[in-house]
Each structure stands twice: as C-alpha cells, then as structure tokens.
C-alpha cells in the first residue's frame, strides 16, 4: 500500500509533482487540439468538397475580379475548379444509364464533352450571381466504401436551400458525381430527359441536339 505512493513520490516533493502534472495535462490538451481536423462531422469526402467550395468562393469573393469585365476570367477559373471537382465521366454514365452502351466510344467522348459544356453554361451565371450567401457543411453519410453524400446548406436572405453532393472515390480522390438540390437530383433529372429522348431517337441525333444547344449559348 505504501509502495505505489513511494514510487510516485520518489525523489520529488508534492508541489513539484503537481506542477509537472499540470504542465503535462496542458501539453496533452494542446496536442489533442492540434491533431483535431478542422471540421466536426468531417470525413475525407466532406473535407474534399468543402475545399473545392472554398476555392470557388475565393474566386467569387476576389476583390480584384469584382468588375463586370472580369466575368470571363471568373468563369474560366471556376470551370477549372469544376473540372477537378466533378467526375464528368461518371456523371455522363449515370445520366445515360442503359443507353450508355448505345454510344460508341467516340460518341461517348463527345457526349461527355457536350454535357460538361451544357452544365457549365447552365450553371455559370447562377454561381456568378452569388452575393455573399453563407454555405454551411453539416454532415457526411457513407453509402458504401466508395460512395458518400456530403450535406450542405446555402443560407441566403430569403431562404435556406439544402444542397447535397454525392461523391465517389476514384483512386484516392473523392469526386462529385451528383448534386441534389432540395431533394432533386441532377443526375436523375437528366436521366429522365435523355431516356425520353432516346426512346425515339438515335444517339447521333441526341448529340446533334446537344451540339445545337451548346452552340447557341
């Protein structure tokens, strides 16, 4: 019974021991805080999406690019980030679903390219219309080993809009393959459109429709 106390007190008096104890606890707490990742509820997927979102916001908030004339520069910068953030091949495959195999490989490549342009044209202006809304990332849900959903909310003056990103692990990088806004999935929506069109038309005519649409804007 006496032995443990003897061991602890060996060669030290009470006050010094307390001091060292306090220092160690402080160091421990500091160390723990340092190794904490930045975001609670964050897995790697959520962090990745958050990072990309931050990059886009940086471009949008850049005071150097505030002028109307720098719109093109902003668009280009955001397009580069989107190229990195999204996996357009995965997106294209999922929107064509069964019909993917009706396209030969050169048509598939063209489809991916056209679809990317279509989305860029469609959403560029919406993104550029950003006026200081807050984006809050809330949680990440794992669907399987390589798929997950990252939830966020865009808080504007008039509304709070839930936007979820579905991500897939390609190699070591998480890429976005679907965006779900207020419960409406982009992939699902385009899939229904392409399905309807390809019921009666050939892949080539869909490509022609897309070419015309993208060419117009």
């Amino acid at each position, binding site marked *: 019974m006496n032995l443990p106390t003897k061991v*602890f007190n060996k060669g030290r008096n009470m006050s010094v*021991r307390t001091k060292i*104890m306090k220092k*160690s606890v402080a160091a*421990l707490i500091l*160390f*723990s805080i340092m*190794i*904490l*990742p930045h975001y*609670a*509820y*964050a*897995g790697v997927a959520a962090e990745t999406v958050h990072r990309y979102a931050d990059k886009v916001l940086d471009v949008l908030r850049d005071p150097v690019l505030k002028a109307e004339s720098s719109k093109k520069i902003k668009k280009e910068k955001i397009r580069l980030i989107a190229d990195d953030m999204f996996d357009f091949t*995965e997106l294209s*495959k*999922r929107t064509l*679903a*069964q019909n*993917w*195999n009706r396209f030969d490989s050169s048509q598939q490549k063209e489809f991916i390219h056209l679809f990317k342009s*279509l*989305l860029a*044209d*469609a*959403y560029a*202006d919406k993104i550029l219309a950003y006026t200081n809304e807050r984006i809050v990332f809330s*949680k*990440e*849900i*794992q*669907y*399987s*080993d*390589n*798929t997950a*959903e990252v939830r966020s909310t865009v808080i504007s*003056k*008039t509304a*709070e809009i839930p936007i979820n990103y*579905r991500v*897939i692990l390609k190699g070591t990088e998480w890429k976005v393959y*679907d965006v*779900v806004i*207020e*419960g*409406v*999935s982009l*992939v*699902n*929506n*385009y899939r*229904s*459109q*392409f399905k*309807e*069109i390809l019921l009666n038309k050939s892949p080539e005519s869909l490509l022609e*429709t*897309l070419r015309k649409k993208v060419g117009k*804007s």
Partner: protein
Amino acid sequence: MKAVNILLMLSALMLSPSVLMADVSLPDPNVEQCVAPPVLIALQSASDDNNRQIVLPDAATAGNLQISFGETVPIADSQASEDEIMIALTQWNSAEEANGIETTKSESAIIPEEKEVEIADPLFPVNKAMFEFNDKLYFWGIKPVTQVYSHTVPEEFRFAISNVYDNLWAPCRMLNNLFQLRFKAAGNELIRFIFNSFAGIGGMGDMAKEALGIKKQDADFGQTLGHYGVGHGFYLVLPVFGPSSMRDGVGLAADQFMHPLTYVSSNTLTFVEKVGISAHEEVNSTSFKIGDYESFKNAAVDPYVSMRNAFIQHRQHKVELSRQ
C-alpha cells in the same frame, strides 16, 4: 509519472479521431436505409443486346425471378424490371472500372439517385399543351407585370409583403402538420402564427424566426396525402399553377379551405377581390424568382420532361421529410 502521461496521450490519440468520425460511421436516421437486394447482376456480353444474359453469382432474387447459382437467364425472359436491370447496370459500370469484369459479392446498396421516380402521364398531349400555355403566359403576362412591380416596389417592402402572405398560410401548415401527426411542428407553426401576427405587426416580419429561432415547418395537403401513402395518380399540368398531379391538385384545393381569406364574408371582400389578392401574392413572390424559369429552360434539354421529373422528385422529398 511519465507512464501515466504517455498512457493518457495514447488514449487521447486513439480516441479523438474515432470520436470525431463517429458521426460519419453511424447510420443516419434521416437517410432512408438503402436495403440492398442480395444481387449483383453481371452481364456476359454488353455489346450485343440480343445475346445479353444475366448470370447471378448467388441464389438471389431479381424482381420476381428466383434464380439459383450459376444459372444463366436471357434478359428477354426475365421478369426483373427494367429499373432493377438499370440499377445493376449502373452498378456494374462503376464496378467495372474498379474491379475488372469480375463480379464481386460485396454490398450492392442501391445508391439513392438510382431509385426511379416515375409518374404516369396519360394526359401527355393535354399536359404538353398546358405546359406551352403556361410558358407563354409567363413570358407574355406574368414576367412583364412582375418586372414593372419589382421596379416600382422596393425590395424590403416586397419582402415584408411576402411575409404577410406567408403568415396567412400558417394555419394551413399547422393543420397539415396536425394531420400528419407531427405535433411539435404543428405547435411551432401555431406559435409562429400568433407571434408573427403580433410582434411582426400583421406578419410583416418573421419575428419568430429571428427572436425565437423557430423556423417555418412547411406542410401542404398534397404532402399529407402522400404521407399516408396516397400515390400521385397521374401527372397534371395546371394553368398558372404549373406542374401538379391528381393528388396534389386535390391538395391545392383542400389547402384553399384552410386559408383564412376563404372565410372572409363576401360582404367584406368580393370573390374578384379575393382572386386579386391571390394574384398579388403570386406576383410578389415571383418578383424574387425572376430568372429562375429562364435558367431552368436553359439547363434543360427537354424542359417538359425535366419539369415533370423535378416535380415528382421534389414532392417525394417532401413526403420523405414528413415521415421523419
């Protein structure tokens, strides 16, 4: 002394990541648990449609079809629905890159967006015509009026007006929440109604959200019907109101009966005046959304189908929210 410290440090190291990741690995009660059918369908030859066959790696079910190990079934004979094949196909396509053509026995959870949401559209010609009508109505009627209105009335006023109208819908939301047996939400809407009507001076300010932090609990009768399992019936495009369905059309009508203005006697407000008030409400709320329809059309390859699909996805989402 040192040993205790090291032990503490090690345990902190081990615990903290897991504490933080805890939320990631826990099944989210908000997410519909994707129950996987124990099937991963592998396609023997993807190129030739006619010769495509299904080989199931395990005793499994595909739709109504029970197949045992190793049996091959030509697709034409299978009763597996098109959707299930499509789900498996999409799965296969993504698995293809990761694993080569080999099938894996691992999880084949249905990823949410693979769930097909479909609606019958027997009135397609009528609906399409109505869709075109609404389109013209927007560009030739509603949009010009709304633009003039936005230029005339400053944003803060329009905002306050939209709050007033929103407040008048509170009884409807409260009742629908009650019908859905969401008592807390119903209570919240009641509090919001009373509080906003007084502290928000007739509802002009959403004081309940700002001061009390109580957010709007949206609910409508179409959602209530969906909550109890009533299906859409069929797709219906209404003039002015836009995309709807048999169920949601009934919902819209029922919602009108829960609106205070319906019960104001016709001596105070004639029917035409009531319609005028509704029109004002519509124009006022559209003033915040000018440009939305245009960008929607710009983004869509087939606007009619896109709108129909977005509508049913959105309504399904609302019903799912009501079930939480």
